[in-house]
């Protein structure tokens, strides 16, 4: 599709949202388009960055991600300390988080895309990611259905650095943590490596600004997975296959209400649709080459996508909801998520090679 008719279609949907849903949702749709354009335009793939770090000892992608985390933390933690209306992405440190993050890191390498990666690659028209998206949604829904049982294995209350230490100290702790992460990466890759790449840095700056806009406008950090789970929940509920009143997660007042409302009112749903639209807009001029997959690769990839959705709920977010939003809003669960997902990625890369992706 060419960009002009695509731009008109996106504009029409924006106007529809502004007139028929709310101005806020229309603006969040634009933020989502920006996120999709930044992710797809810069090919800002969290999965790829981790893979390049481990397999090639190439730090450029992870350096871009560290810049994104540092910029987003500076903006979001400052805002959280100033405005009581804004909420952090606080997930509970738990056994569920440990297992979920590990499985997510493993499966995202097989599926070649994390939460945001699946969205923008689906928007770009990459067949496997388009196929994965509905299964990711189904997995995310089932994860939410079971998450209360997983939490019974052991959990702490969510820990927020801003609440504990205030904005300034939370920012210092976060930046110190990112510096340590950078030093660990430096120790892994060794000397003489190229660290900075314009593409990754432009993506990092754009995504940090857009993630902050999401927080300021919506009052909550950027998330991906909740919207996916809600979409599947609505379909399963409408089919009469699920009783939300009998489930610990979906019987909660807010979740139960969202099941009856249009998904266009849901914050993560509207930015997800925007990300797909923004990536589609980029795809109108970009060329994406994809290799044909064998039947076995399709089956393995789709299964990984389903598990990725399930595990992202156990982990209280994906690379966006847990890592980016968790760390940049001072949630300790984001810091736990990263090393577990990295361990999973190390295994996932072996599985990926085994199936010759």
């Amino acid at each position: 599709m060419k960009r002009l008719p695509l731009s008109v279609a996106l504009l029409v949907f924006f106007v529809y949202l502004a007139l028929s849903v709310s101005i806020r949702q229309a603006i969040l749709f634009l933020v989502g388009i920006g996120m999709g354009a930044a992710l797809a335009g810069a090919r800002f793939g969290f999965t790829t960055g981790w893979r390049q770090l481990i397999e090639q000892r190439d730090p450029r992608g992870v350096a871009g991600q560290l810049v994104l985390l540092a910029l987003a933390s500076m903006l979001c933690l400052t805002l959280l300390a100033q405005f009581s209306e804004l909420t952090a992405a606080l997930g509970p440190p738990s056994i569920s988080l440990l297992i979920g993050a590990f499985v997510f890191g493993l499966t995202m390498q097989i599926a070649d895309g994390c939460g945001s990666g699946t969205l923008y690659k689906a928007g770009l028209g990459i067949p496997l990611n388009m196929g994965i998206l509905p299964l990711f949604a189904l997995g995310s829904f089932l994860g939410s259905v079971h998450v209360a049982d997983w939490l019974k294995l052991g959990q702490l209350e969510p820990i927020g650095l801003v609440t504990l230490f205030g904005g300034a100290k939370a920012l210092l702790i976060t930046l110190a943590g990112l510096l340590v992460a950078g030093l660990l990466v430096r120790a892994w890759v060794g000397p003489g490596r190229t660290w900075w790449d314009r593409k990754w840095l432009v993506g990092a700056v754009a995504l940090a600004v857009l993630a902050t806009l999401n927080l300021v406008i919506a009052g909550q950090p950027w998330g991906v997975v909740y919207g996916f789970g809600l979409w599947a929940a609505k379909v399963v509920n409408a089919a009469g296959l699920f009783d939300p009143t009998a489930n610990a997660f979906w019987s909660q007042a807010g979740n139960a209400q969202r099941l009856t409302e249009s998904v266009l009112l849901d914050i993560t749903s509207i930015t997800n649709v925007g990300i797909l639209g923004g990536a589609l807009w980029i795809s109108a001029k970009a060329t994406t080459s994809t290799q044909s997959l064998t039947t076995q690769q399709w089956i393995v990839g789709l299964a990984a996508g389903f598990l990725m959705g399930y595990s992202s709920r156990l982990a209280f977010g994906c690379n966006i909801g847990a890592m980016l939003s968790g760390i940049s809003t001072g949630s300790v669960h984001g810091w736990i998520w990263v090393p577990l997902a990295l361990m999973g990625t190390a295994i996932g890369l072996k599985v990926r090679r085994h199936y010759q992706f």
Partner: protein
Amino acid sequence: MTKVSKPKLSVAFWTVLLLFLVWDTVVSAPIDLRNEPPLIAAGSGKASVGGHCAIAK
């Protein structure tokens, strides 16, 4: 190799997504425009009540 037509799959993907959004709009409770959330949450005095993947409940 399993050959998947990229344009056809793209059309199917976007068609399903659009149909889902239309279906959802039809079956969901009508949107109350008088209960519109603040344009910008920061400084509005209203706490965010949206769903997020980090929240356990």
